[in-house]
């Protein structure tokens, strides 16, 4: 493997992440990762876990296509089309539910508690499982740009270099990098404002609420776009 291949994988990842089509999920991810205002280590840890979720997804999909399960005889087109068709349908409702968990809205309206309070608290605090799971889900919800770059450019590159692990990993980290950078920006900005007014904990609570709202809005957006077929972009 050459530095050229490594550089290409990072670049493809960043390109995937900064393209306009995954914007809504990226904004949700940024607020989710960056909402631990006043705690740099937690923001960093969340960022790493988010990247980990993405990396796991890209390695898993790559393994399915590049031959770990040859008996399945799936082409990259089959897998790509399947994911684009179904994960995007799931994404909207899932984001709304996560947003409701963050705002502690579930359980109030449920006499039979679907998600226990423990789950809500853990989601609110951003347990390991949640942040990684979010990265995993967002990585699998391919939009045209990410599908084109991952299936059309990264996987052929991985196949050429016989690299089923390293290049997808680098690509996954590349897709998470802009999100982590912006999450830090938000966390620092929040802390700065909070310190100036001596109200860090209040700002943190506020940012957490905003995160929930962003998730619900993003969820409604994806539901309208993918389920109801409303064209929201030019």
């Amino acid at each position, binding site marked *: 493997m050459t530095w050229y291949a490594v550089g290409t994988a990072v670049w493809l990842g960043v390109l995937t992440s900064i393209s306009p089509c995954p914007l809504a999920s990226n904004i949700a991810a940024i607020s989710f990762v960056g909402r631990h205002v006043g705690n740099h280590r937690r923001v960093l840890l969340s960022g790493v876990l988010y990247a980990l979720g993405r990396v796991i997804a890209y390695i898993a999909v790559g393994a399915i296509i590049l031959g770990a399960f040859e008996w399945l005889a799936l082409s990259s087109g089959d897998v*790509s089309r399947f994911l684009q068709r179904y994960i995007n349908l799931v994404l909207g409702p899932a984001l709304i539910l996560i947003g409701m968990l963050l705002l502690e*809205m579930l359980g109030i309206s449920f006499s039979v508690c679907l998600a226990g309070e423990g789950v809500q608290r853990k989601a609110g605090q951003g347990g390991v499982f949640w942040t990684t799971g979010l990265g995993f889900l967002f990585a699998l919800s391919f939009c045209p740009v990410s599908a084109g770059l991952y299936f059309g450019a990264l996987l052929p590159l991985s196949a050429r270099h016989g690299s089923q692990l390293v290049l997808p990993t680098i690509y996954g980290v590349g897709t998470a990098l802009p999100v982590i950078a912006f999450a830090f920006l938000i966390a620092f900005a929040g802390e700065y404002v909070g310190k100036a007014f001596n109200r860090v904990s209040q700002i943190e609570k506020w940012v957490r609420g905003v995160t929930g709202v962003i998730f619900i809005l993003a969820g409604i957006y994806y539901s309208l776009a993918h389920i109801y077929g409303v064209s929201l972009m030019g």
Partner: protein
Amino acid sequence: MKIDAKKLLAKLLLAFVLISIGFAIGKEVTLRRVQAGRSDVASATQPAEQGDKVVIYYMHATIRCVTCNSIEAMTAKLIDSAFADAKQAGKLVWKEVDFQENEDLAKRYDVVSSCIVVVHQRDGKQVAFQRLDDVWLLADKPQQFNEYVAKAILAYLGGGQQQ
């Protein structure tokens, strides 16, 4: 009072989620039924054509994105400027297809995402094809994009003209 508003909002959102899931399932079932019906019709009514022909498909997903639209526009512009004669003569055909609705074409060309597929047909039958996945990498470099797409078209169009 505040709690009541939150409760109401929560109920509304849950209702939206449930309706969306139901709608998604309904849409999926309908789409499958339509696809099953259409593939029978399509294979029966294929007109026989004579001679060489290059068909350029722009394959896109049901959801369009900003970059996808610019790829389509760039290709259409290239064809209208550099291959206008061939298009006029019917040697070159430009088609836009939703690959998520047209499962047959998507399978035939193993489409992973929106892309350009250039197909060489002889007497109505497919002889060769190229799937241009790199359009994504060249979308912001118009000159290289045009060269890349034109090269693929010329490979088949040139062959057709020599005979």
